[in-house]
């Protein structure tokens, strides 16, 4: 593990430390691990709590049998094993989740990640990528990875479970869903992921004007201005005049690239503003701040202010 990852894991372990179950202390009357589990907040881990309860309902003597966390873990693993080989009533996703949650509760997040991985491998084979249980378990794993600061791994899970299956489809619904994923990736600053999805959509000629424009925005965020310029040209070439809001955005990016090249863009910006005034339907949400933030130091304060103001208007803000 790299040093950054190591630090992340250590601090995550610290976070989870407070929920660690302590070994039973000698007392005048016996302690009980089951009640300890509830004291330590097991109810926050719904599957784990339900799993422990299920085990005890099936075998009440486990109340005494669960003398320490190791006994509980052993019982959970055994139940998981039974369910992997079980019949129609088995629910391996539930037991994978419960066991992983127990690992988190006992401050062993890396063991939890391992259980989740094992569970996903099993479910992908047994139920398929698109099965609801596979997605639910993947989401749990993603959330834990994010909590541990393992952002890249979390993204990879999301990509494999949400994006890859959509990429295998060519229908319009999948394309739209993919574009939504690309936008989410862009908004979250995962530009490389967004670029890959937009390129995939362009390879299938999905709404080329808009998609080239989206891609240009991503490339600008990545600082690849020359590539962005090419995409803006392609967007303009592909623009058919149907969706005027796209034209406004293409022209905005064109003007921005021109300004970054040192050109005076007051004229084009005024023209865009006039267009917005005449066609209010072109004003709708547009996320451009990350790009403006990146290029702010490359523009004069006046030009930057013009672009910032125009972006607000494009997004539906007030016009003077």
């Amino acid at each position, binding site marked *: 593990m790299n040093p950054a990852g190591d630090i992340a894991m250590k601090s995550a372990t610290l976070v989870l430390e407070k929920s660690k179950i302590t070994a039973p202390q000698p007392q*005048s*009357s016996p302690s009980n691990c089951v009640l300890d589990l509830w004291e330590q907040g097991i109810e926050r881990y719904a599957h784990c709590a339900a799993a422990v309860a299920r085990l005890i*309902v099936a075998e*009440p003597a486990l109340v005494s049998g669960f003398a320490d966390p190791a006994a509980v873990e052993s019982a959970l693993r055994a139940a998981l094993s039974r369910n992997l080989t079980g019949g129609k009533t088995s629910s391996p996703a539930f037991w994978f989740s419960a066991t992983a949650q127990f690992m988190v509760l006992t401050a062993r997040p890396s063991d939890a990640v391992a259980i989740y991985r094992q569970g996903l491998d099993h479910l992908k084979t047994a139920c398929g990528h698109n099965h609801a249980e596979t997605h639910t378990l993947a989401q749990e794993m993603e959330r834990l990875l994010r909590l541990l600061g393992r952002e890249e791994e979390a993204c990879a899970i999301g990509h494999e479970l949400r994006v890859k299956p959509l990429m295998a489809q060519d229908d319009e619904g999948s394309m739209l869903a993919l574009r939504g994923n690309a936008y989410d990736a862009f908004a979250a600053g995962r530009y490389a992921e967004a670029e890959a999805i937009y390129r995939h959509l362009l390879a299938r000629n999905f709404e080329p004007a808009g998609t080239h424009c989206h891609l240009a925005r991503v490339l600008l965020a990545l600082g690849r201005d020359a590539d962005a310029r090419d995409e803006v040209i392609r967007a303009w070439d592909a623009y058919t005049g149907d969706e005027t809001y796209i034209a406004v955005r293409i022209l905005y990016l064109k003007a921005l690239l021109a300004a970054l090249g040192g050109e005076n863009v007051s004229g084009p910006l005024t023209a865009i503003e006039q267009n917005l005034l005449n066609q209010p339907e072109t004003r709708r949400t547009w996320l451009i701040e990350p790009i403006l933030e990146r290029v702010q130091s490359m523009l004069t304060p006046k030009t930057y202010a013009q672009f910032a103001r125009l972006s*607000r208007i494009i997004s*539906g803000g*007030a016009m003077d």
Partner: protein
Amino acid sequence: MAIFKPRNSSPQPIRFVEGSDVPATHLMGFEQEMALCATKSSGPVPDLEILLKKLCEIAEESLIHLRGFGDSGIFIANGGRLYVDCLKYEYAGPECSDPDEMVKYLLAGERILAALASELARRTGLDDAGLYRCNVDYVGSATWGAHESYLTRSEPSKLSADLIPFLAARVITAGAGGFRPLTRTGCTFTLSPRAWHICVPMSQSSTGAGERGIFHVKDETLSTGYHRLHVLVGDAICSHAQNWLKFATTSIVVALADAGLHPAREMALCDPVDALREFASDPTCKATARAKSGRQLSAADIQRHYLKLARQHMHADWMPAWAAMAIEKWDAMLRQLDGAPDSVATCLDWAIKYRVFQSHIEKKGFDQKWLRNCTHLTDFLRCCLDATPSAASLSEFSPELLLNPRGPVRKIVSQLAPFLPSRAMEWGQLETYLKLRSELFALDFKFGRLGEKGIFNCLDRAGVLDHRVAGIDDAQIDYAAAHPPALGRAKLRGEAIRRLHKKGSRDVSNWTSVFDSGNGMLLNLSDPFIAEEIWSKKGNPNTACNFPF
């Protein structure tokens, strides 16, 4: 220790940043949902729906008002609105330009509603009728919202990342206190019961179970040229100072974000919902959550970060005139929270409740530790009952069911018996615990009742609280009940309502216009800062199809 000093409360004129349309006057508003509860010793209490309808009739008879468009209740002379939504009675205050006004109009509305409830009891022969700021229902899953609105120039969705850490962290200064809802058997104190109904960082929905977000992306602007940020993660609170601070600090943080300063750049939380719940679980306010930067941050750490940035920009031309004073009060409150819960036990709702609950628990001869142990034991047994084959038919959680020698968890109960003494528990106390739990929930419910019977108001009258905002007195609150704020469109709306109000009038109002049906004239209020009444002719007022909205 009083943290709110006397000050001049005369309203500041509307200001804009010189040479631009950026307002330095910050408009804001609130909506508060309330539960109506009635008792009658002889005969059945009428259905809630009937009582709410009667309450609306009383409001129409006794208040200067215009009907809202469609079925949207009434707009009253102070510029606010009263209506019924999903069997909840709701008061939405007029647009206000500073936190003093917000508190005044909140209290004015509460005064109006308390009087309406009393009149309802009198007219319908009820023993009692009251409206309650109860936030959550501990039996079911209903909630009563206390939402805020802040005027912005940015689309709300673009402010989400900047505001989510603040909205999660403000629970320590804005929480109502109570118990964790949705547990069925537990009794665990929380700084904010509604925090447990928040399930995602961002949402479109404000009502759906499992869908409410810390940040609400709704963008129903109700104006031209501006946006409206709708904040739904919040509780209805009683303390005047706490309400003041909630409105002031949120307005300032929204202004920082709206100005493009990205105030949360270093504060992004790995899991904001988990962080909110962690913060809400700790009455000492020391709980921490992990930021994406890798740091462990307490709610106070996060608020101090925003406070620091606010101080740096305190004199910016887009900051409101009251910002400097708000920043001082904010700073003082964060310092005071170092000693929470005791240090804030007379001024913040959650800490006042914490003391009230503590006192009741001790009066019954128990302590928090015992209550926690009982919570864990009953939660465990509830889980076991759920896991039994007969779970579906077990709606009632009772000692009889648990301790029944032929009951579904009898073997587990007998297995657990040897482990109870070390936790100072015995099975015989189960009924006592469930009774105490009900009593504590009832205390929480009664705490926020409007009018003199509310526990908060009783404590206030007894002089044991320190929550008042200097400069806001009874006369001002009475005035605010019948008159609009001094600035902005609420002023014009309120004045027009007062002039047009007459019995049987077909004149109507909504947030963005008032329609004078007699003259077919429309007052356009879509500019929230409008200062002058400009009426324009609008079709034939006698035909519904020419209705202006």
